[in-house]
């Protein structure tokens, strides 16, 4: 039995959770098993989407205390589901909550964890072998999980989401949190203002800019390009540190690590710490006035020249492309 944890955010099943359900159903196929998803405070439409992603059964938990997403409470909840289903493989997304809950569950269940898998596992006897990125994307490693219960968390954007016509059996799953006391009290919530854009960790298209833009007043064209492409904006570390752009836009080793389908870097030289956060992108376009910028060595497409003349031309080209393809 494969158990997968899913999460609702902003009224929808998180994209990374749907990826995890897809992934879990493939693992069930590989191990001759079936997938049960656990869903917390999900409505009928959300449960339907989890079914479409491949879950055969959904344990639907209704509990207000879990809305805090405290790892202690979530871990206790999932532990009860693991016991009820006799699950041997547990799947998370390697997202913010997955990074907090999967390790806790690993310690609780004495279950080997591979955190941030990038491919489907292979079955080797009673072990699973899973590939993950190591050395900040400079290499991959194949890990063997040797324990009886196994946990894998899947790096977001590793596979596109597939929704089919499967529908899951939904079971109301009652949990008992007696004695599990969350001591974490939420005092204040702060939302990032992303102006309707897809959040960076989930974005498939990202337009990012750096110091080459010379000042925050010049970001209009970056935002316009992003808008035309329906992309999310990002920035380099110096730009965030100088407060030209908000902290949550910072991609790189110390900021957010992303792996979109397309990453357009404008006026970013490509320091190794920046690359560590973006080198998983499928396609990288670099626009820089310095033809010696190290980023060109890690790019698929490069344009040498002044961003202030190139970006407006690129915006026009995108508009023309859209007009011809609608």
């Amino acid at each position: 039995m494969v158990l997968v944890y899913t999460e609702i955010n902003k009224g929808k099943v998180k994209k990374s959770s749907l990826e995890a359900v897809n992934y879990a159903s493939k693992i069930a196929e590989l191990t001759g098993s079936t997938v049960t998803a656990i869903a917390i405070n999900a409505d009928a439409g959300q449960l339907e989407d989890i079914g479409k992603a491949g879950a055969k059964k959904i344990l639907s938990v209704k509990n207000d205390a879990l809305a805090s997403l405290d790892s202690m409470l979530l871990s206790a909840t999932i532990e009860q589901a693991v016991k009820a289903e006799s699950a041997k493989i547990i799947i998370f997304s390697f997202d913010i909550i997955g990074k907090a809950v999967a390790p806790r569950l690993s310690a609780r269940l004495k279950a080997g964890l591979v955190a941030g898998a990038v491919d489907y596992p292979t079955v080797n006897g009673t072990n699973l072998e899973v590939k993950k990125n190591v050395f900040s994307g400079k290499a991959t490693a194949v890990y063997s999980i040797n324990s009886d219960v196994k946990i894998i968390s899947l790096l977001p954007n590793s596979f596109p989401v597939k929704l089919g016509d499967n529908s899951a059996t939904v079971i109301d799953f009652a949990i008992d949190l007696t004695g599990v006391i969350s001591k974490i009290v939420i005092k204040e919530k702060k939302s990032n203002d992303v102006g309707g854009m897809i959040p960076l960790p989930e974005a498939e298209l990202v337009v990012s800019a750096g110091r080459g833009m010379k000042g925050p007043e010049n970001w209009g064209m970056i935002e316009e390009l992003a808008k035309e492409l329906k992309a999310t904006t990002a920035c380099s570390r110096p730009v965030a540190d100088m407060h030209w752009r908000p902290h949550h836009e910072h991609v790189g080793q110390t900021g957010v690590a992303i792996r979109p389908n397309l990453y357009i870097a404008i006026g970013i030289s490509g320091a190794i710490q920046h690359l560590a956060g973006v080198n998983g992108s499928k396609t990288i376009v670099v626009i820089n006035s310095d033809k010696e910028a190290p980023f060109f060595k890690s790019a698929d497409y490069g344009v040498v020249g002044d961003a202030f003349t190139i970006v407006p031309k690129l915006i026009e080209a995108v508009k023309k492309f859209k007009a011809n393809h609608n």
Partner: protein
Amino acid sequence: MKILVPISNVPDTTTKIAFTNGDTEFNTAGVQFIINPYDEWYALVRALELKETGKAEKVTIIHVGLADADATIRKGFALGADDGVRVDSEGPDAYFVAEQIAKYAKDNGYDLIMTGKETINYNGSSVGGMVAGFMDLPFISLAVKFDLEGNKATVEQDVDGGAQVVECELPLVVSCAKGMAEQRIPNMKGIMSARTKPLTVVAATGSDKLTNVKSYTLSAGRTTVKMIDENNMDELVNLLHTEAKVI
């Protein structure tokens, strides 16, 4: 109140990565090792600031590894940590490492454990959450601000789509991200005292090897970049559509 800061001994960020022994081991030849930047800049420095403002009595570094990591532990002493513990073991995986740290913290009465958000070599973000699991303590991940008032921690942490401010009574495990503190450079006094600060070596306690690395592969670099003339953005857009298939 004592703070325990687990550190990882990692290759410097700019290291050219190579493998040996049939691609089953990281090749350490000629590699400069450092304290994992997240453990140092964010967890350790913030812990030291708490001590310096009288909110903690002592900051101890713990590392699970072999004797070649002692120099890295002493770098933490130079920054200001009071003492250190090395659990003498290769530390085969995050579970093993976390189990050792949790046992030491429990046996020696640490109320606050501050880790980095991830290591730059294994990128697992696992040890903090596991330590909390072993000790049955609350865990606050991705802390960007942290303060203490008596026994109560006030923490700002990154969450999906934003941030939140939470309060929690100690004992507590927290993982630290950018924003917690500024990088420090050790001063001469720190460097001098680092040599004589106590570094205790303890044996690892039995634990199972739940995972192991079978093999490593270097990531394929990108093939040569295709340069596009700055006056031909139509071609770039066209290539993104037909060749890269991303728009």
